């Protein structure tokens, strides 16, 4: 055991872990963070706090994570390479750890072009792999990236994202390997709709024995409507949504679509549970956090084990 | 006030448009005498600067007349010319001048009637726009550059 992370403990116990996420508000409204995370209470082992997701300015993930931590819950602080150089990253990591935040996720970040500040200069001083490596060395070697010793090193449980669906597909397992090499502890995948392709990727992962070196949490997103499915298929980069998903949603009335979406999410979890190497689920109910407990319960992942 | 008689320059390619203009003549089809032709071997020779200079020194409108699409004697000179005309249109827009003062038309050698029709239409367009850059101010002591 490297860290105090609740997620690490669950995973170490061999139980399937469950995480979800909470997008911070676009304003100084701590109550919003509280409302959202309260919905997830008891049903998840960690709450991802996104970092200016889709390149829209939001409350910093550091601040929102602190609020969640102060509620007694377990935030997973996300950090993107887009907005900070290595100095800012490291100071925030120390700061967060000082508030008891012990789990984080290292990401490249969506390109600023899509956000509300397309004119912004992306920092990209280091990339997500280099970030993983930096955080690991801060923890294990107790040194800053520049080489100096840290007095009071942050012991972060380090996560990263993986998108099994982006291409080139053959690179996707290798990229995972690279992140493992850099020192990642757990992986949350992109939302999985194309289960066949995910299985193929997982086979690549297990064939190389990578599932032994990292915990993989499968990304699950319930579709609210067929419109959302279409939007994700056509507009969100790196998404793989088979036509069968859209057809199935089209097959039911508009009122029934949310329920059908949840049903589909639960079915996915059931199927993914059978896949070797999957150690948990990351449920991203986008602006629909209230449904997470229902999915967790219906998927037989409730109650959460105590660690 | 006198009616405004625009002065128009037409750069015509030897093989198509210039021949079409001759054809209009031999058929005695009249078109406004405002249009004066400068012959070029191919409209691909017509540079953006020729159009700009024409406007600068007194033309109220300038057009480039080449072969029909796909019929250019030199393969694609007319396509190049059209691109340059479009660039000049853009520049004129940026400068606050009417982009309609320049135009590209495409004619085959036999299209005498169409040549005349084009000349008439373009002259009318320019007549409506009024005097061009070189005419507005009546500056004549401008130093040559």
């Amino acid at each position: 055991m490297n860290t105090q992370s609740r997620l690490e403990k669950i995973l170490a116990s061999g139980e399937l872990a469950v995480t979800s996420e909470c997008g911070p508000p676009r304003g100084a409204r701590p109550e919003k963070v509280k409302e959202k995370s309260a919905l997830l209470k008891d049903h998840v082992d960690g709450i991802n706090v996104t970092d200016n997701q889709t390149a829209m300015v939001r409350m910093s993930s550091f601040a929102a994570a602190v609020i969640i931590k102060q509620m007694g819950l377990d935030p997973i602080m996300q950090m993107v390479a887009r907005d900070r150089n290595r100095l800012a990253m490291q100071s925030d990591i120390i700061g967060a750890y000082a508030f008891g935040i012990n789990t984080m996720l290292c990401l490249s970040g969506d390109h600023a072009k899509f956000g509300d500040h397309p004119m912004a200069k992306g920092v990209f001083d280091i990339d997500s792999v280099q970030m993983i490596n930096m955080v690991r060395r801060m923890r294990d070697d107790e040194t800053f990236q520049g080489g100096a010793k840290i007095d009071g090193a942050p012991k972060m449980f380090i996560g990263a994202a993986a998108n099994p669906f982006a291409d080139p597909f053959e690179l996707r397992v290798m990229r995972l390997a690279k992140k493992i090499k850099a020192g990642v502890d757990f992986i949350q995948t992109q939302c999985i709709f194309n289960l066949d392709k995910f299985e193929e990727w997982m086979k690549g992962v297990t064939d190389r024995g990578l599932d032994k070196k990292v915990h993989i949490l499968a990304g699950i997103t319930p579709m609210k409507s067929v419109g959302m499915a279409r939007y994700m298929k056509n507009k969100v980069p790196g998404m793989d949504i088979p036509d069968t998903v859209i057809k199935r949603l089209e097959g039911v009335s508009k009122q029934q679509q949310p329920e059908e979406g949840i049903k589909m999410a639960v079915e996915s979890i059931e199927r993914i549970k059978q896949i070797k190497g999957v150690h948990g689920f990351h449920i991203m109910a986008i602006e629909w956090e209230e449904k997470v407990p229902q999915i967790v319960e219906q998927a037989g992942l409730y109650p959460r084990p105590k660690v | 006030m006198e009616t405004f008689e625009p002065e128009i320059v037409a750069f015509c390619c030897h093989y198509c448009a210039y021949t079409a203009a001759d054809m209009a003549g031999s058929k005695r089809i009249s078109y406004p005498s405002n249009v004066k032709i400068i012959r070029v071997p191919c409209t691909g020779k017509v540079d953006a600067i020729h159009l700009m200079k024409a406007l600068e020194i007194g033309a109220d409108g300038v057009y480039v007349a080449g072969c029909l699409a796909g019929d250019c004697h030199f393969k694609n000179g007319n396509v190049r010319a059209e691109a340059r005309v479009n660039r000049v249109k853009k520049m004129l827009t940026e400068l606050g001048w009417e982009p309609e003062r320049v135009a590209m038309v495409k004619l085959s050698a036999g299209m005498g009637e169409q040549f005349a029709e084009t000349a008439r239409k373009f002259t009318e367009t320019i007549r409506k726009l009024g005097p061009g850059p070189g005419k507005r101010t009546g500056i004549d002591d401008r130093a040559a550059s």
Partner: protein
Amino acid sequence: MITAEQKPMQEIIQYIAPYSKILLVGCNECVTVCAAGGRKEVGLLASALHLNHLKQGKTIDIKEITLERQCDPEYVEELAPYIDGVDAVVSMACGCGVQTVAGRYKKSPVFPAVNTRFMGASLGQGVWAERCKGCGDCVLGITGGICPVARCSKHLFNGPCGGTSNGQCEIGPETDCAWRLIWERLKELGMEDRYEDLMNAKDWRPGGAAGPGKIIREDLA
């Protein structure tokens, strides 16, 4: 090659509004090749400025000259005979050229007429694409000859992000994913295994992080 694009006409017009005698200076190097500030563009801009002034009912005297290279003082010296006769200089060179001119002729205001864009390569007639960021520490040797700094929208050093779709970058289908290209190239070269080598965080000092770059060749200087 340094690429540039002409500035919006109104910006140039604003710059020169107070002046009536302009020296318009082109450059026969990069900006000629990228059709932004060569002899031809100098002529066009001069004509455009005349058209603008005619609209205002004013006159403007423009002297056109195109230097072999505006970023070399010896060539810039060729402007000396004309400089006293003008109120302002408009340079159609890249930023390097503008500054060389401005540095030499301190009494004349010097205005840029082009926006310097990037170091690029020609993809064919009229198309240029960014190829180098001048990072000062070239990695092309290990990335199959495709630069992740200049060509990946996020300057990623360790492979493609999750936004790639159909082999294109998430910023748009007109941009190739640099890492897809690198990967394909490495495969062609039989160097796939190199991909899993971790590339460490880059030292940005040679590329400008250490302040304005300067090269001094002692054998030549």
